[in-house]
């Protein structure tokens, strides 16, 4: 393999990794806030992709323009899912963790089924968009614009999230709620409201990822599966609940995956990622940046 090909594989791994981070951050945020693993995370991504696709078809606008609208719609969806499902699952007196798992898992199956019924299992794909199919050629190293844009959105989202968490009252309330759910009630913070907003925010972030992916990936009721698995290992590797661990872990997963293909057959490319995760479990079971 030539130097150029090597740089290509690593650059692609970097871009993919940033997008993995964006896909995973919503999951991590929700987990960190309330210790609930959202098993419908992949289906949220799928719905965001269909929403983007549908809005593009109806409005004729570019996915980039529609991105804030998709995020807003997903925010509403996330909040609704918390208020309509998760809130009740959390009231279970015993085995609360299991109830939450099965509630979100059931939601995942339901959403997939509904999507297949409404949208058919045909594969969809955006034909034309501003960035679709355009590539930045850096001396023979090709960086597809949709992925470059996705990586930038990812960095911007993490930057925005950092500001939100550190500079706003809402961010402080979020942080306080995740520190101690009981104590925040004493200072007049409505736990339910924070949780609903947290779910909304997590879903809005996956909305951004969905809009980004729509430009260069196919859309299908089962599309969430491929990314959800990556998102789970990213969150576990970065540290459960560590939002910025998700960014670092996304990058690591992307790079390790790419580097694995240099030494192993591509069909085994996820082996490197899981081997690394197991290694991390041995030394730091809470994940690289976990605080448990």
């Amino acid at each position, binding site marked *: *393999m*030539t130097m150029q*090909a090597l740089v*290509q*594989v690593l650059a*692609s*791994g970097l871009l*993919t990794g940033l997008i*993995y981070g964006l896909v995973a951050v919503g999951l991590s945020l929700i987990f960190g806030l309330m210790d609930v693993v959202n098993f419908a995370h992949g289906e949220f991504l799928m719905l965001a992709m269909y929403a983007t696709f549908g809005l593009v078809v109806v409005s004729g606008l570019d996915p980039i323009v529609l991105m804030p609208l998709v995020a807003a719609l997903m925010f509403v969806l996330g909040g609704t899912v918390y208020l309509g499902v998760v809130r009740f699952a959390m009231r279970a007196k015993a085995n609360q963790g299991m109830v939450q798992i099965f509630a979100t898992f059931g939601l995942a199956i339901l959403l*997939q*089924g509904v999507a*297949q019924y409404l949208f*058919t*299992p*045909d*594969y*969809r*794909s955006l*034909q034309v968009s501003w960035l679709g*199919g355009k*590539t930045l*050629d850096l001396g023979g190293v*090709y960086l*597809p614009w*949709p*992925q470059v844009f996705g990586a930038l959105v990812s960095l911007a989202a993490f930057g925005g999230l950092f500001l939100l968490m550190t500079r706003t009252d809402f961010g402080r309330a979020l942080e306080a709620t995740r520190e101690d759910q009981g104590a925040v009630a004493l200072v007049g913070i409505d736990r339910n409201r924070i949780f609903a907003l947290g779910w909304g925010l997590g879903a809005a972030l996956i909305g951004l990822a969905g809009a980004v992916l729509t430009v*260069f*990936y*196919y859309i*299908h*009721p*089962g599309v969430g*599966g*491929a*990314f959800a698995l*990556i998102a789970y290992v990213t969150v576990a590797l970065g540290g459960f609940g560590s939002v910025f661990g998700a960014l670092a872990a996304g990058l690591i997963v992307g790079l390790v*995956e*790419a580097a694995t*293909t*240099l030494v192993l*057959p*591509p*069909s*085994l*490319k*996820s082996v490197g990622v899981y081997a690394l995760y197991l290694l991390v479990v041995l030394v730091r079971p809470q994940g690289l940046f976990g605080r448990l």
Partner: protein
Amino acid sequence: MLRRREILAAGALALAGLRSQRATAADEVVVGVLYALSGASAQNGVDARRAFETALDVINESHDLDLPAAKGAGLEGLGGAKIRLVIADHQGDPQKGRAEAERLITQDKVIAIVGAYQSSVSATVSAVCERYGVPFVCADSSSPSLSRRNLKYFFRPAANDEMFSAAMFDFMDGLRKQGKMIDSVSLFYEDTIYGIDSSNVQRKLANERGYKIAADVKYKSNSPSLTAEVQALKSAGADVLLPTCYTNDAILLTKTMGELGYKPKAIIAQAAGFSEKSVYDAVGDKLQGLISRASFSLDLAAKRPSVGIVNAMYRKRADRDLNDNTSRQFTAMLVLADALNRAGSTDGAKLRAALAATDIPGTRTIMPWKKVIFDAGGQNPDATPVLIQYVGTTFVTVFPESAAVAPAIWPMNA
């Protein structure tokens, strides 16, 4: 007390009698159909269902078509009995396929199963059928190993990937003779039995016929990204790319090739994903000149009216033309109906014997085949494969000469 018991017993007997009467009045023949109706290849299941509904229309109603079981309503050999389908979902998972096949046979009492698209699923389903002595008509799985297991109840009317791949290499040999330079091929295949079997055959043929294998890439199906894989193909830069992929990966492969600026000089695909309308809807502009192996060619309608009529019947249901997969599904059901007519029975052993004795001339099918017969392994050796090329928005048959309507455009990207 005794009297009451007698009455009850008599009643039970009478009921049992009624029941058995109903079962023997063969007004309905139940056939199991096993496809992925959810998951990544659900669309194949949806399209398959419409292909089978079209076949049932032909069999159960009277049509003036020169096809087996078309004339007269229902199955003549079974007193006009009609076929009813029980459709089950295997989700593309071999283990679910095994469980569903058991259920179809033991609970729904199906007399035969038709399926199952994914070769990995057909492998488990056919093993269950063998155990119960219920014929499995393998409509559209193409792994050569399926017909090499000495199963007595396995029947595949269509070609396998050995036959398909041989046609690809015959075609390339022909181009070489015309002075076209084809030295190397790249193999790109998914990691289940379909991809692996296909690559084994292609690797063997390439070595035997003197084509250098520039890249040999096995990839993980349903991957979030194929960048590194495509990079390997691009670095190798073979004269011909030979992909074996299902629909989603076919789309992602094509998109990624576009993004990485890789334009293969030529592509000859092992159908599957590259037969699907959704691939051409998504990335057809990047696939101009792609050649795919096929069991079916719509061009044949010009010579054989039944092809056009059946396609129109299917189109009305599915809003798309018959393709490599759906044409094979349609034909498999007709082959089964033909055997049922000759067997005059739904008994597993008798139906198996009738299937084994099948001899339908190609002209009485919608396929470009010589005929439908079965060898000892249940493979039809006379299912002549064709190669079709994507030009504009349609496929044109380019190989073999007997079926070709135009010479191939070669290479696709000069």
